[in-house]
């Protein structure tokens, strides 16, 4: 039963990783941008949530009402102000610029909040659990997973059933021709980044309720997000959720074998999948 427990806990943890990864997947899918600062933006969202919930005296989840639009606005301005200028035929400039951005965000957070680990107070939600048979599942991990499924389903629906999603796919297919349809790709990219960071806000707040965080942990979150995206297959949002679950299960099962193996087990499974299926498990069918 312990092993079943480890697998289920890991699957629920995968929901959090899927929230980290969905934004990365979206940005890469629409504009071929690899955002090295994504992990730091997750941490920034956690700090924004902390400040908001402390200042207003509200539950961190309620703070999402403010943090989501804040992160979306930051995303739009960031894209139009900086990142659009780095996009072109060369993949290197956006990598370098977002790497620099990562350093800047970490240091600004360090200046503002110090290096002390912080945590958001989720109240009763943190310890509440439900019993399923002989298993006891935390309410917070379940909620995280349900929200992740909801976010992925929402993004998927938006991509395939709305005019905005159509614009995203058109720009992703062919930027020049999309411009001919009257789509301003700079604006579309801005909207994609806004949406990605809105999802990042959700991931950041769930992260901050679940564990303590400090300005230096962004890199690790970025890696988990990347691994989930690659395992699932680029450009497939449901695949990203599956990738997050696989990564989460690998980590908890690894930790069950030996607590020191938690992170390593996740990386090993990632490398194995990369070696066997370089395009991930569920790559998008049309190239």
């Amino acid at each position, binding site marked *: 039963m312990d092993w079943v427990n480890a697998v289920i806990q890991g699957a629920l943890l995968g929901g959090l990783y899927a929230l980290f990864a969905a934004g990365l997947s979206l940005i890469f899918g629409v504009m071929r941008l690899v955002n090295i600062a994504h992990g730091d933006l997750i941490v920034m969202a956690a700090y924004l949530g902390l400040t908001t919930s402390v200042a207003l005296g509200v539950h961190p989840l309620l703070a999402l009402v403010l943090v989501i639009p804040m992160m979306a606005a930051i995303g739009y301005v960031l894209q139009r102000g900086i990142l659009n200028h780095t996009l072109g035929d060369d993949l290197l400039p956006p990598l370098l610029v977002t790497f620099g951005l990562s350093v800047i965000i970490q240091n600004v957070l360090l200046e503002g909040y110090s290096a002390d680990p912080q945590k958001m107070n989720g109240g009763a939600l943190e310890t509440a659990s439900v019993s399923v048979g002989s298993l006891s599942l935390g309410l917070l991990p379940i909620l995280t997973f349900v929200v992740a499924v909801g976010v992925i389903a929402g993004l998927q629906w938006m991509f395939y059933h709305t005019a905005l999603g*159509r614009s995203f*796919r058109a720009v992703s297919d062919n930027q*020049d*021709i999309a*411009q001919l*349809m*009257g789509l301003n790709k700079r604006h579309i990219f801005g909207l994609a980044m806004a949406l990605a960071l809105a999802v990042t806000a959700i991931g950041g707040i769930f992260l901050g309720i679940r564990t303590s965080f400090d300005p230096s942990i962004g890199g690790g979150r970025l890696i988990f997000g990347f691994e989930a995206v690659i395992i699932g297959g680029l450009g497939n949002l449901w695949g990203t959720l599956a990738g997050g679950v696989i990564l989460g299960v690998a980590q908890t099962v690894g930790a069950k074998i030996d607590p020191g193996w938690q992170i390593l087990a996740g990386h090993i499974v990632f490398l194995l999948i990369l070696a066997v299926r370089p395009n991930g498990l569920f790559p998008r069918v049309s190239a």
Partner: protein
Amino acid sequence: MPEPILDIRGLDAHYGDFQALYGLNLTLAPGEVLAIIGSNGAGKTTLLRSISGLMSNGAAQIRYRGTPIGALRADQVASLGIALVPEGRQLFPSLSVEENLLIGGRVKRAGPWSLSKVYELFPILQDRRHQASTSLSGGQQQMVAIGRALMANPDLILFDEISLGLAPIIIRDIYAALPGIVGGGMSAVIVEQDISKALSVSSRVYCLQEGRVSLEGDSATVSRDDISRAYFGIA
């Protein structure tokens, strides 16, 4: 002659150090259909890319209804009512047939063209509307590309080599549809390799050679010898 809908004066276009157009002049009256012919590399596609805003030029070198548009971006030009049917169709592969058409209508200009009008013009597309655009035959894809441009209800439509790579019988069908498209007062510029097709649907013709206009005349009266000279540069 009424005020031209399109007035190009001294248009230069460059790809890096390579100059593709040299001081090109061209006018188009409202409702007129203009054919542009010329050998490969003469600058035909460059001219359409310049008009549609995919290439940036001197602002005043291209005027549309008197407004300088040479330096505008493609999305700005599109919203003014200029649509391009690009060479090689260039449909969006991750969009279905109907989505390709819908995205063409994104600029939301008022006019006669709608989804149902396009399906009326090309009935086969209605049967295929939920298929991936890449699953269609070349001719059907060309119909989607034309429909996609029409959905914007443009006042000026640019066709770039619409017969390229298509079977003669398909080309005939597509050209048979053209009068129904431009008959409603829409102006058109047709770039075409097939000279007799180009002359049959247009009222005036320009021949380009090495980035310059080598011949301008009425499609009905221009002689084959003149075209040969302008086309190949035989003095």
